[in-house]
């Protein structure tokens, strides 16, 4: 009821605006691009982005839009392919004339696309690309809403050494930008902590048989395995470890932060004792409680990057409100210097566009197929 009233009010306001002859300015929507993998093997992450931003835009529009103009979302599918990412980026900039972009997801897509946004002076905030290179290239309009792999790897390494008391650690990755970046960061920290990994190898994305690798893990008598990669490989990997009688814990990063891990591992029994790093779960924060309820009522569990995407839109909206502008350079300058209150709490960025505070924590899966923060 409240919403309908607001909408009516907004419509009435818009109508009055039309009458006063400023129709073009007022009713013309602000376009926001949402870029990510909506097809291909990573499409489930794209869906999380879309769900997050869609709800965010609906809420903002219900509250009267930004600067009195409604928001319009433009979906842009990059399928996590660099070439497509560049193509959709120039499309968003040139054809759609978006004011800001939320995306992309795969770091290998974000890196080439961000160059295009920066060149056109369009604000880009990625809710989920964690590769350090994204913000390490002096691009003033590029931000991220998440942590970086080098921070994530540090948390993982310290957890393995200090909490799990891992002596013979094996480091695996899936040979993607993300997975290998994570594994490298982890390995580096391991060396700082005075440990040498017993094995450092990659597996092929898209394969399901890792038995040979698991036997090799057994041969080197590893007592903790770190995996940089996504759930589609982590699931079969942990299952085959357990089937071959390996009890060593598997530790991974945000790429497996999805309940699909349970399905792809073949049941909750296999994910018991899997650890993963992720930002402090935004669903537990007081700021986001109401929103999580709205999602659950619609039958969608806002896991993974859903709330990150929502918060990203909030940050963009806040910058637009504060600067009364949609110009990328101005928005970026404001975001570099000001903190934003979001559904995930207060967020602030440094001069590179990284979050000032990284909040990675460790989660543990139990035998019921649920995960909980390790305290």
């Amino acid at each position: 009821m409240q919403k309908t009233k607001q909408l009516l009010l907004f419509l009435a306001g818009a109508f009055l605006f039309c009458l006063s002859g400023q129709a073009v300015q007022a009713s013309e929507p602000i376009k926001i691009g949402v870029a990510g993998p909506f097809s291909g093997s990573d499409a489930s992450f794209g869906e999380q982005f879309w769900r997050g931003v869609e709800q965010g835009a609906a809420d903002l529009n219900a509250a009267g839009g930004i600067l009195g103009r409604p928001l319009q979302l433009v979906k842009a599918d990059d399928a996590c392919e660099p070439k497509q990412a560049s193509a959709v980026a120039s499309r968003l900039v040139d054809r759609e004339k978006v004011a800001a972009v939320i995306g992309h997801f795969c770091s290998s897509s974000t890196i080439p696309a961000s160059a295009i946004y920066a060149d056109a002076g369009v604000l880009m905030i990625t809710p989920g690309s964690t590769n350090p290179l994204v913000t390490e290239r002096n691009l003033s309009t590029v931000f991220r809403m998440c942590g970086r792999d080098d921070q994530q790897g540090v948390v993982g390494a310290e957890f393995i050494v200090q909490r799990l008391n891992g002596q013979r650690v094996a480091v695996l990755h899936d040979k993607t930008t993300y997975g290998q970046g994570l594994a490298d960061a982890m390995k580096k920290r391991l060396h700082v902590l005075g440990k040498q990994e017993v094995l450092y190898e990659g597996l092929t994305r898209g394969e399901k048989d890792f038995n040979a690798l698991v036997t090799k893990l057994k041969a080197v008598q590893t007592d903790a395995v770190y995996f940089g990669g996504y759930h589609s490989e982590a699931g079969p990997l942990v299952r085959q470890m357990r089937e071959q009688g390996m009890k060593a814990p598997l530790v991974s990063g945000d790429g497996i932060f999805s309940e699909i891990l349970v399905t792809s591992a073949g049941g909750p029994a296999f994910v018991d004792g899997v650890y993963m790093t992720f930002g402090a779960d935004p669903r537990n924060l007081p700021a986001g409680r109401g929103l999580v309820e709205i999602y659950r009522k619609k039958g969608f569990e806002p896991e993974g990057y859903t709330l990150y995407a929502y918060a990203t839109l909030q940050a963009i909206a806040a910058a637009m409100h504060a600067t009364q502008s949609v110009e990328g350079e101005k928005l970026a300058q404001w975001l570099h210097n000001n903190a934003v209150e979001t559904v995930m709490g207060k967020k602030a960025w440094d001069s590179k566009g990284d979050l000032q505070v990284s909040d990675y924590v460790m989660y543990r899966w139990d035998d019921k197929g649920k995960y909980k923060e390790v305290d």
Partner: protein
Amino acid sequence: MDIYIFGQQWVNGLVLGSTYGLIAVGYTMVYGIIGMINFAHGEIYMISAYLTAIFLALLGTFGLQSVPVVLVLVLLGTVLLTALYGWSVERIAYRPLRNSNRLAPLISAIGISLILQNYIRISQGARNQGVPPVIDGVWRIPANAVDQHFVQITHLQSLIVVTAFASMAVLTWIIHHTALGRACRATQQDRVMANLLGVDTDRIISVVFVMGAAMAAVAGMLVTLNYGSFDFYIGFLMGIKAFTAAVLGGIGSLPGAMLGGVVLGLAESFFAGFVNSDYKDVFAFSLLILFLIFRPSGFLGVPEVEKV
């Protein structure tokens, strides 16, 4: 290197190789009969994985508990429907191109594999899917009495190996000892002549596609049960690997497909296990190239005589 690790890698390679072999049958038979690389075959395998999970879940909702009954029903359903997919693909995309140039069916095969992948993605979603474990149990052979090391093979893995070799034997028997098999071989040797002698070659080619799809379905079901995880993208990599196996064994030869599969599986396992899993696939493809240069007809293929 400990002997139990060696033994375990042997088992790993054999299981993996058996699945390669089952899928390689489809490539080798189609290539043998119409000289075409059926790039959509990997997607047929992918579809069978989805069908397995769907039938398994369907029987689950009916409350069927007995494992053997469930397995047989799922196998029947999966094989029949996958074969129907194989047949339809041939009917729609390859038969109209029967008498055109050699490359046209190749392109339409690539088109079909794009269609099938996206058809599954749109209807079933892009997310990873899975099946719950159906067959548990494992045989473990202790390496020695002192420590707890062992070589193991799960019941399901042994089922994969046995099924692969058994179905290959049955298929080879069909090809060599039945009227249908004779017609297949006649079509393979000279399609025009076979046609003149009263063999309905179009039908025979359909049968070959159906047989290849059925074998891929057997593989798809067993692999799905074994790894418990699949997505719409698994067909591509599996297809390329199985095709490599078919070439290694000598394309056109049924026992060769099986042998090639096992050799490829073992090579991958041993290379990943004892050298480096990063370069496992590089090794597999290098093996393929070297083989083609020095023994182009594979293990069991017949050297080709150029006809003038």
